[in-house]
């Protein structure tokens, strides 16, 4: 159902628009796995750390790809950034916490943070702070399946799936089951506080006095 939806009654400029379908996501993650291997001298030090919920199936897929390409087993961790968010003082309702599961130590490792959609960079900032509480990685890099732009912090992505220019009030999210790489990335135009999006920009908008 990746329709253009020309006659959507919302009056949106675009209805939901598919940015990447499942095949596209898989292809992109395969390319990123190759890029990671290309740029990593000692792949034995790699440690993929997913930012839930959207980053989790992506990190697992990258780990599968690395095993397939290079025969290496790369640890996959999950790191919830909620308690490190910079907008907790301004939100009235407490956001739900999500799973954190860090199966091995981060000291001396090449940690690659994996997120689905990167926008303001605030989630990545929170993830880096959280990561440092687990130890001292040798290197921290970032994978973003989609980079929307609109950065508010000096954060750059090391591996980008796709650059998608968007307007700030559009919402981009990964549709599909949590934990499973199914579904598609959709661009949806909706009010900024609707939907439980993994979009890192939510914090910023609320902090900005929405």
């Amino acid at each position, binding site marked *: 159902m990746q329709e253009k939806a020309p006659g959507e009654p919302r009056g949106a400029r675009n209805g939901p628009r598919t940015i990447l379908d499942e095949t596209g996501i898989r292809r992109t993650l395969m390319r990123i796995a190759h890029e990671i291997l290309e740029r990593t001298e000692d792949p034995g030090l790699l440690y993929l750390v997913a930012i839930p919920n959207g980053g989790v199936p992506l990190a697992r897929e990258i780990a599968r790809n690395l095993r397939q390409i290079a025969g290496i087993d790369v640890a996959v961790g999950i790191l919830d950034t909620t308690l490190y968010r910079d907008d907790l003082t301004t939100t009235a*309702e*407490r956001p739900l916490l999500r799973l954190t599961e860090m199966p091995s130590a981060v000291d001396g490792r090449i940690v690659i943070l994996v997120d689905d959609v990167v926008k303001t960079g605030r989630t990545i900032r929170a993830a880096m702070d959280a990561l440092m509480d687990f130890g001292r990685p040798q290197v921290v890099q970032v994978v973003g399946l989609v980079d929307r732009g609109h950065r508010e912090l000096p954060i750059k992505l090391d591996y980008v799936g796709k650059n998608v220019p968007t307007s700030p009030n559009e919402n981009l999210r990964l549709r599909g089951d949590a934990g499973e790489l199914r579904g598609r990335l959709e661009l949806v135009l909706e009010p900024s506080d609707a939907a439980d999006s993994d979009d890192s920009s939510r914090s910023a908008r609320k902090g900005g006095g929405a």
Partner: protein
Amino acid sequence: MIGRDLLGIEDLDRSDIERILQTAEHMGEIGEREVKKVPTLRGRTLVNLFFEPSTRTQTSFEIAGKRLSADVVNFSPRSSSLTKAESILDTARTLDAMDPDAVVVRHAVAGVPKRIADVLEAPVINAGDGAHEHPTQALLDLFTVRREKGRIDGLTVTIVGDIVHSRVARSNIYGFLKMGAEVRLAAPPPMIPAAVETLGVKAFTSLREALDGADVVMALRIQNERFAGSYFPSVREYAATFGIDRATLRYAKDDAIVMHPGPVNRGVELSHDLADHRPSVILDQVRNGVSIRMAVLYLISGRLHRGGVA
């Protein structure tokens, strides 16, 4: 919805309890890290206002606050149950003028945390008031049971001992009933509150009957110095009739767990052996208490700005 204050389990509905337990599940992980601290409540001040001494509960709240990076101040004014309400409220107002972000209150008289909550700007968490409620204890008990058994719904929970004087029992009765468990009480008749069955629990004077098929056995502390001679003939007789040991535990389910809010009178409510070993989960209760209090502080402090900007 979880309100501004946490005064009792009676005020919560099932989804509130679920949310607190769910949040505590994630808080537990922080305690296993090398750096047991997250920046969530940085710059917030938590005051422990304990009119009645309680090293254990106070320490638990203090550790919970510090793991969330709050500044924790302990304030234990001298007070007795005879102290006038006005002077207690004065103390609370004085404290409030120093702009704390949350106040944890323990008092020997039921209802004091509520009175304090009515005059304070800051949210109030009840850490035990008289024989009324001790909500965080019940939450940590619910949490411990759910971790041990994987569920609460449909379990049989037997609470043994001084029900009538116990805020722990009262909060747990509300909590376990709301979460779908069957709750039984076992105690000498004077220690069972009148008309308690209207709450939906079953009261027994035979320990054996009360334990039959129980999944959870919760022993309460007997304040022996206060009650021996009036509520039961002697501590020894109480231990013989209502004390839990491996022999009486056989009446419960094979995989029943034993709980106690502490501190245990060894050889009275629980045999020495049970006080220290499985199937008792007393130290897990203590550990889980920190996670529960972190969860409560996190959820409560989200509503700090009363009537302020959203």
